[in-house]
């Protein structure tokens, strides 16, 4: 059990590092071909993206388009790119039927010019799979704690 958690923690810390460094192609390599990425709305954190309006609900096609956009200097919301720092903790992982289910807490500070600091906190939920011995992300969900997006504004970077 704790061996699995340590393995998952190493994986999440590595992923956080790639995202905070904007190494987005390397991050893409952590995903399965059918990976999905979700940010549910603050008022329906357990909603289903097919029946509830999300903040982000990317299938694998749109997720790859999102990376193309984020790397483009014309992605004005992220140009110059935000400086982000995420701290991940309270990692819980369990494995069943070839999938690893993960829950972890996060705090993310996003800095922009002019002393603009926006803090995001919440829970990550993952479905991970093993492909050729390596962990891969099949689904990634960032669930925000706040009652509303409010001062956080946009989720224009990868949360």
């Amino acid at each position: 059990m704790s061996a699995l958690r340590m393995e998952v923690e190493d994986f999440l810390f590595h992923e956080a590092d790639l995202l905070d460094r904007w190494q987005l192609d390397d991050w893409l390599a952590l995903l399965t071909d059918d990976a999905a990425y979700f940010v549910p709305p603050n008022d329906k954190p357990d909603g289903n993206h097919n029946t509830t309006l999300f903040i982000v609900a990317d299938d694998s096609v749109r997720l790859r388009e999102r990376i193309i956009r984020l790397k483009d200097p014309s992605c004005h919301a992220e140009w110059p790119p935000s400086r982000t720092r995420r701290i991940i903790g309270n990692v819980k992982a369990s494995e069943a039927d070839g999938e690893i289910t993960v829950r972890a807490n996060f705090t993310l500070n996003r800095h922009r010019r002019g002393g603009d600091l926006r803090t995001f906190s919440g829970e990550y939920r993952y479905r991970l799979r093993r492909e050729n011995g390596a962990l891969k992300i099949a689904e990634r969900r960032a669930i925000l704690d706040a009652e509303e997006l409010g001062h956080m504004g946009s989720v224009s970077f990868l949360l």
Partner: protein
Amino acid sequence: MEAIMAENKGRTKGETMRNSSEWVLEDRGADQFLVNRQVFISDDILQKEWDVIFRTCWIYIGHGSEIRNPGDFRTRKVAGRQMIFCRDKDGAVRAMLNVCPHRGALVCREREGNARGFFCMYHGWTFQTDGSLRSGPGLDAYGPKFDKASHGLVQAPRLEHYRDFYFINFDPNAVSLSDYLAGAKEYIDIVVDQSPSGQMEIVSGTQEYDIKANWKLLVENSVDDYHIITTHSTWINYMSNSGVDMRRPKGSLLPSLGAGKNLGNGHLTTDNPNYRGRPVARWISVYGEEAKEDIDNIRAELVARLGEARAARVADTNRNLVIFPNLVINDGSSVTVRNFTPVSPGLMKVTSWALGPVEETEAQRARRLHAFLTFYGPGGFATPDDVAALEAAQEGYAAWREAPWNDLSRGMYKSEDDQLDTDEGHIRTFWRRWKDLMETAA
């Protein structure tokens, strides 16, 4: 020290309060329309907007579908006031101040739900869903002259709806909502015609986010098609990469040539031939091959119900509609209802929802929500760049003394009937209305 303060004070008086007739300048001879940037940063002007615009105009409070059953309620801030929007136990829609008549505390602190009544946690007064006072501990202490009937929640002086869009007005003498909406009704009708039964609903899930910019900038931005090729070039690339034809005809800034329209009373809209796909009912490759037949069926239903011409109007045109002052209905990639309220001159709170026909199948609803997020919302492929643009503009306005004017003159040399969506004629109609209201009150 005192002298410096006095000097600064004098300067503030001389410079900060321009005469209201100088906030919006229109020179028809020079084809020039200018808005002073002070209107985006002045506390005094915002105070006047609260007093005039948000107190005498019809302000959107919610959609009937959000409170389907007796006892259903939503609490939200409307025109700066905490409100309860609910359906009472007899089925009547209510808009009441969420303010205890006793000592002013909120009587409902939940976002939404179904209630048999409302309860003030401060001193325990309870209210029926129609707002009347039901009970309270020890009310006998107020003596025999206590009039229970006059101690209910305060109802909005006016509450009216058009096709299930509910608005309130704090001016008891305001014109009817129907008269107020004027030409905007025609465009709301086009939106609602997407439903076979004429019933649209707000979809579950709320996007609530702040923009560090003046609220009027979102009015402009919501209908400004001039910015799309620049601000949203990554969205255009996304559409192109997905197989949508985004080529622009010669002389056009967008894949189709649209119009900007004045709908009266400060309402305005874009009215554009579709190029970006519509869940009802124009297929684009983003929806996937498997959706083609379904979209054809949706269109066939429109034609059978509305006839060929009206079906084409509904299915083949897009509109971004502003209901003065602060409601936007964008009927493009999907339908969004977007409401926004100032907090301070440089900060607004935005709430947006998805709207769809009640009859939609789960696959159709999923397609609508997927299409919504191609463009709209704080995680969409376009809205965050709008937010960045508005915040960048707001930053610039700090230099209003040296760089005082926003220019909204595009297309002004042409007649009102010839205004393109990429011109600024429709945006000028907002400013004219804003100016009229603010000056009348001066």
